[in-house]
């Protein structure tokens, strides 16, 4: 039996980017903060470009702890949703993420979020990556870390617990 041809690379990228865009662009607060996501395969990096409205201490100046907190939480939720939906994105089972008008799947809800502020956030772009430590049927545990110029010198890290959306709707 002849082997089936692998899916063309453009098609694979188009499907994944459309899914990511559907997840991110629909959330007003992510747009308000100007956060975007870089994708390499299934790896996501959150990017929060510097903006004057993110400043908390104009004298230093430094990013507001609340802006850093929101950036970490957004990255954690998108990272967890992305890993939760990955198989359905790959199989094309999720119509909502393939550009149709079907409603988006329900997203995980934060139970708690604990932040460590490690260094003052400078007035420049920030990056963050989430790591899903455990994702079960009901609960998930996610760790997330943010840095600016140097990944080895994180500005903040956080870990949070989430309630997963019920599969039966």
């Amino acid at each position, binding site marked *: 039996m002849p082997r089936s041809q692998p899916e063309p690379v453009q098609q694979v990228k188009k499907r994944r980017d459309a899914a990511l865009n559907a997840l991110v662009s629909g959330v007003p607060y992510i747009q308000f903060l100007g956060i975007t996501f870089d994708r390499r395969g299934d790896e996501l990096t959150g990017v929060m470009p510097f903006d004057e*409205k993110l400043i908390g*201490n104009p004298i230093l100046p430094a990013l507001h702890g609340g802006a850093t907190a929101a950036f970490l939480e957004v990255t954690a939720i998108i990272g967890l949703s992305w890993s939760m939906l990955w198989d359905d994105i790959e199989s094309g089972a999720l119509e909502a993420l393939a550009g149709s008008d079907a409603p988006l799947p329900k997203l995980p809800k934060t139970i708690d979020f604990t932040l460590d502020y490690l260094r003052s956030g400078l007035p420049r772009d920030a990056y963050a990556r989430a790591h899903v430590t455990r994702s079960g049927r009901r609960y998930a545990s996610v760790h997330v870390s943010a840095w600016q110029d140097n990944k080895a010198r994180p500005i903040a890290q956080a870990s949070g617990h989430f309630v997963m959306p019920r599969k039966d709707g």
Partner: protein
Amino acid sequence: MTQDKAKFATQFIEAIPHAKALGMKLIELGDGAAEISMGYDKRFVGDPETGVIHGGAVSALMDMCCGTAAISHPDNPGGTATIDLRIDYMRPATPGQTITAKAECYHITRSVAFVRGRATDGDPDNPVATATGTFTVEAK
């Protein structure tokens, strides 16, 4: 609030770009206590299906209110920075409602201010979120 106090409250928020961008209002400021509100705004929504405010915006309000309580303590001579902050989300905030956070600095040493906070959106017995944090105390 007297006119002087109201003027100070406005200037305080105006000086902090992120608090201003989120439309925060300083309601009350005591010795180691603060109350700050954030009105409902469609730009802060986290779930477009329901119109519920994003947890990140609630976190920003909590960080701001807890930090303000830390700097308002008489034993804290200067500014502050967050060391750590834990937020527990009890329930989604009701769409359309203003969220009000209250925080108190319940203990302070030469280097650390210990703060707890609570956010409600109308019913004081049914909080949206609670917070516990530690903040830096600047050297004298």
